[in-house]
């Protein structure tokens, strides 16, 4: 890691980096761009997140469904006064496209980047498309770090002009298989140059503690900022679905029971007996419990050594971020002043 002389000891000087560097428990959120060219959606979602997150991830054709581009939406987010973390998958772009897009993204004011391999296109709405996977996420991390620190392109050519300086992030799936290798794969990402990590959703704190213990043993937590992924459950059905169908997500039965119990007042009624109002009230009760669970998880995560913050994934439920951040005692968000350039 080479600090830029213009960023006063920071790698990049983004808000996210400054908050983490100052030792604050960071909060990042997520903003899913629309499946259309509607800029209003970005404005609305940004308004719900503004002030509650240090930076917001802008997903990149998440679950392989075509959406407004991460950089395009990120530009709107910058205009909205929020700091984006642009996500960049290796699925849709080769090394030329990734590098050129990042030059553009930096010029447009983006400072944080999350490097991902990307969901396979078979999951999305263009399953017949050809994927790229020219490089993988770890190679992407290295490439972007080299662009920043060595001012070179992946081919080795020196950049002619200012280099794009990104605070480089990577994903971690602590509970995906092979389980024993996960702390090492995380270490590989950090070795490649990941400045921060955002993990898959964590619901099983005990299992996560075991993972973090291994991470600490490798010393990885001291070389990167680990942001644990959290997300509010919407219903017991969603919890069961994620537990059974999404790789690498562990949800203790106890949490599913709590979600089910939240809907207990309506449990006696059959599907036909439930009125619209009933369903609304039940959904509200579930959501309230989901938010409460999320708050408790954040509080428990704060106690774990090596966890530098949380990444709140409230997918298509951006309104949940405010009560979660407030409930966890993480509001207001710290303001760490931008570095002033050293006098020449």
């Amino acid at each position: 890691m080479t600090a830029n002389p213009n960023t006063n000891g920071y790698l990049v000087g983004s808000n996210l980096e400054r908050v983490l560097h100052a030792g604050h428990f960071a909060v990042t959120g997520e903003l899913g761009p629309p499946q259309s060219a509607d800029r209003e959606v970005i404005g609305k979602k940004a308004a719900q997140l503004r002030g509650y997150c240090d930076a917001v991830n802008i997903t990149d054709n998440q679950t392989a469904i075509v959406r407004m581009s991460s950089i395009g939406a990120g530009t709107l987010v910058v205009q909205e006064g929020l700091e984006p973390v642009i996500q960049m998958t290796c699925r849709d772009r080769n090394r030329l496209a990734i590098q050129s897009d990042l030059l553009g993204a930096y010029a447009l004011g983006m400072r944080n980047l999350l490097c991902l391999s990307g969901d396979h296109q078979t999951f999305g709405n263009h399953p017949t498309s050809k994927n790229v996977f020219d490089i993988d996420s770890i190679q992407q991390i290295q490439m972007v770090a080299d662009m920043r620190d060595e001012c070179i392109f992946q081919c080795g050519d020196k950049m002619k002009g200012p280099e794009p300086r990104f605070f480089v992030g990577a994903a971690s799936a602590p509970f995906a298989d092979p389980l024993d290798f996960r702390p090492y794969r995380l270490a590989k990402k950090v070795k490649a140059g990941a400045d921060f990590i955002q993990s898959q959703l964590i619901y099983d704190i005990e299992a996560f503690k075991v993972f973090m213990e291994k991470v600490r043993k490798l010393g990885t937590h001291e070389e990167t900022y680990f942001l644990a992924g959290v997300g509010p459950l919407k219903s017991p059905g969603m919890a069961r679905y994620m537990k059974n169908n999404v790789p690498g997500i562990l949800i203790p039965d106890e949490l599913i029971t709590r979600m089910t119990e939240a809907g207990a007042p309506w449990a006696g009624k059959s599907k036909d007996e439930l009125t619209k109002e009933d369903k609304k009230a039940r959904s509200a009760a579930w959501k309230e419990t989901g938010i409460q669970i999320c708050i408790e998880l954040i509080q428990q995560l704060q106690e774990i050594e090596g966890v530098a913050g949380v990444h709140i994934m409230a997918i298509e439920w951006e309104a949940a971020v405010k009560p979660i951040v407030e409930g966890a005692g993480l509001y207001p968000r710290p303001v760490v002043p931008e570095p002033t350039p050293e006098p020449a």
Partner: protein
Amino acid sequence: MIVAEQKSLDEIKSLIGSANKVLVVGCGTCVTVCFAGGSREAAIMSSSLRMSSKLDGVPRNVSDVTVQRQCEWEYLDTISKQVEEADIVLSLGCGIGVQAIAEHFPNTWVVPGLNTTFMGLPLEQGVWAERCAACGDCILGLTGGICPIARCSKSLLNGPCGGSEDGHCEIDPEIPCAWQLIYDRLSSMDKLDVLMELQAPKNWQTSRDGGPRKIIREDLRLVGEEE
């Protein structure tokens, strides 16, 4: 070996169109052992075509012949008379066989009867799986003899991704996660340290991305045959 699958009879008939004299050409090599285009499949294809065409009210004159290897000129020479007499050739060879026929018989219209699917091996009778992507720069020495280019859905060189669960790939429970296989093998041989190396971006120039490939071995060339 090259593994292929037959196209549907409907598709084959539409490829043949109105041609009357059809020569089905089987191949005695890869597609014979994967039961897609050997002499038996060629005979079944020609019988099926004769019956089906008759039922459609447009009987065709269909015959079949199988050569040892469709992808070598000398074997194709043995059927040149039959090929010349046919209106159309339905090749049950792999994509290479079809092209060899087209290249060797410039005046013959040839259509494919197979979809060439992958390079792989039979796991058991009737079950084949992909093993090699012919990337032109073999990395099997780094991965314990299991190819992530051909067998990881994302061709990751620094896998596994977060979609590995219970040993299978997230895109299909029938697909084993190549990186789980690599991990298990290296682990059982006490070579996990290999996985800690960061693998640099691959040079895809040796693969199809560098354009169509060709190998020239001067030591093997015959003076009289040089292009």
